[in-house]
């Protein structure tokens, strides 16, 4: 469980400090990609969680419709 927290911490830091640099929210999904990453790491563990998150980010572009997609 501790190891999961280590993976989640940088995502939380991103949400607080890096994400505002983008000026506007940009995610085509709800929950957002970063929140999805946090949720799926908690739900599926680090390995599967990270893979799912990467897949999700790759989908998050104008050629995919986006939408409601919880972890």
């Amino acid at each position, binding site marked *: 469980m501790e190891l999961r927290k280590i993976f989640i911490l940088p995502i939380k830091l991103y949400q607080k*400090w890096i994400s*505002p*640099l*983008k*000026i*506007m*929210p*940009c*995610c*085509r*999904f*709800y929950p*957002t*990609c*970063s929140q999805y990453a946090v949720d799926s790491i908690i739900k599926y563990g680090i390995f599967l969680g990270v893979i799912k998150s990467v897949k999700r*980010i*790759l*989908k*998050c*572009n*104008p*050629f*995919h*419709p*986006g*939408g*409601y997609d919880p972890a």
Partner: protein
Amino acid sequence: MFTAIPTFFGRILFFIYENIANNNYGVALIIFAITTRFLMLPLALKQIKSSARMQELQPQMQEIQKKYKNDREKLNQEMMKFYQEHKYNPMSGCLPILIQMPIMISLFSVIRRPLTYMLRGYDSETITDLISKVPEDILIRGYEELSAVSFHGIMDLSFLGVNLGLVPTWRPEIIFGTDTMRIYLPLFLISVIAAITTYFSSKMMTAMRSKNDKKDKKDDPNAAMQKNMMLVAPFLTFFFSFQFPAGLGLYWTVGNLFQMVQQFLVNGVGKKNKKEA
């Protein structure tokens, strides 16, 4: 893996520097920035086409917003479902933005270590040797290669009289110091310009969206939040610019200007559609 990407971008930057930019480091960085933006244009264009549909879907979207006014979680869910149904989405997505991060991080390495990543024919032994010959008092920690490049006159990192290999500072005694003002005042101006262009590019983006949203601003908690966000981005840019060589600030500024031109053209398209509708 961690050296492959900076090496890749470093070689591209060097090619531009040698063949297109006439050995001007600043011009090379500007062309590099514009090129990366152009490569991402297909994603932007796809998004612009989708935005054109905003007008016709507006009334239904407002209805959903009214209905779930007091439940943000539910509102977000319903909005997303609505977007899915109509194959429409106002956001451009995380991937187009995330692609820029490795470029930024690699570019930082390229600027910081030109002998390793950009120039050809310098192995690590030669580099260590070159660095060791630089007098201690002009060697900048963390930027040893940049110091070596300047000291041995290997490459000219200046652009319009500004040394893009130096890190700007906010300390007034250096910016306005008698010996240092000539160097650090222009560097400080790059930080200021980077922050100002960030502000205006964000302003143009929000202006476009709120015009399309046409809802009562007093009732909208997002409007106030967006206003704050618009100040956060330039502030963070300003703060970050004092941590990295000025070349990165120049790259950021050019990216902002490109974004502004792009947004200007998109806004024009939006107006045209409105007239036709």
